[in-house]
């Protein structure tokens, strides 16, 4: 009985150590090569076209997205859906190597303004729970052009002159951060 137990333990230990050795030092076979190639290809395609990893630079979306953080951009977000107000979106510059993270505050046809730091949408004040800190922005009313969205960052504590915001074409929306 004792011998059987001991043998079972040894056999299990051997199986585990063989598996660990095989995992870290695999035999280079065609099958293994194909598998590695497939995994690399799927990972590269996913990171390029589906879920694009990005490093955040700048404080314009704080506190939701902090400077130096990482975001994964879901590129298929607007294939079948239109952007919604309050949604955080990534907009692409020339390509997708550099993108801007902003929040949609107004849609096409709506009028947008800032009065004493409060966002006015079609003349009505809007509550924005994602905005923290004091804000004293003043911006005259303007109407969002057709097929455009109006984007502003969450960090309204910074001076308005230093904050990049405004309307952009719908075609520039590259996706939404999922992380």
């Amino acid at each position: 009985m004792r011998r059987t137990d001991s043998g079972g333990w040894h056999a299990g230990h051997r199986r585990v150590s063989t598996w660990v050795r095989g995992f870290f030092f695999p035999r280079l076979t065609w099958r293994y090569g194909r598998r590695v190639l497939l995994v690399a290809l799927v990972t590269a395609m996913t990171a390029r076209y589906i879920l694009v990893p990005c490093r955040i630079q700048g404080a314009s979306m704080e506190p939701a997205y902090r400077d130096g953080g990482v975001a994964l951009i879901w590129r298929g977000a607007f294939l079948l859906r239109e952007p919604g107000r309050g949604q955080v979106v990534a907009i692409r510059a020339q390509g997708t190597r550099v993108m801007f993270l902003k929040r949609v505050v107004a849609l096409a046809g709506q009028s947008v303004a800032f009065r004493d730091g409060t966002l006015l949408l079609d003349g009505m004040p809007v509550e924005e729970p994602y905005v923290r800190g004091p804000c004293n922005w003043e911006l005259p009313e303007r109407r969002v052009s057709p097929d455009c969205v109006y984007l502003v960052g969450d960090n309204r504590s910074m001076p308005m002159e230093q904050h990049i915001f405004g309307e952009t074409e719908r075609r520039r929306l590259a996706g939404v951060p999922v992380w």
Partner: protein
Amino acid sequence: MKTLRIAAAIAVLAAAGWGLWRWLRPTEEKVIRGRLEDLADCVSRRDRESTPIMGLKMTSLQGFFAPEVSIAISGFPGEARYTAAQLASEVARARPYFSVIELTFFDVEVAVQDHGNATLSGTARLVLVSADGGERTEETRVVHCRLSRDEGPWQFAAFSEEPLLRR
């Protein structure tokens, strides 16, 4: 196992051969990309850059520009049209105010037209660190360039900006 090694060696040799061929026979598009990278390198300034390096960069800067250059970029100080010497001089005058200047281009697209003309679009990122207070400023813009070439190398004739967000 042996077959796999032979296949890997062939793949490496093929990749090296292709790279060598591309390097020895660059396309016009690649030449223009190289000019842009060289221009960015010339404009950029690393911390504690030596005077000879700076002098060398400023001497070669004028050669990147066509005899007349138009600039339509918001926030760019001065006139809309420059001669190559004027523009190089403007850049040289601005350099001492910053300890670090980093100009980088991303997602560059080049379209070569006939008669020695080409256009280039890309995302330009400029990082400036002021020499006195060390204040850091970052600007990211979508920039379009027009290039021309007679007998010599490609030269930048126009810079314009495509606004991403309009207030």
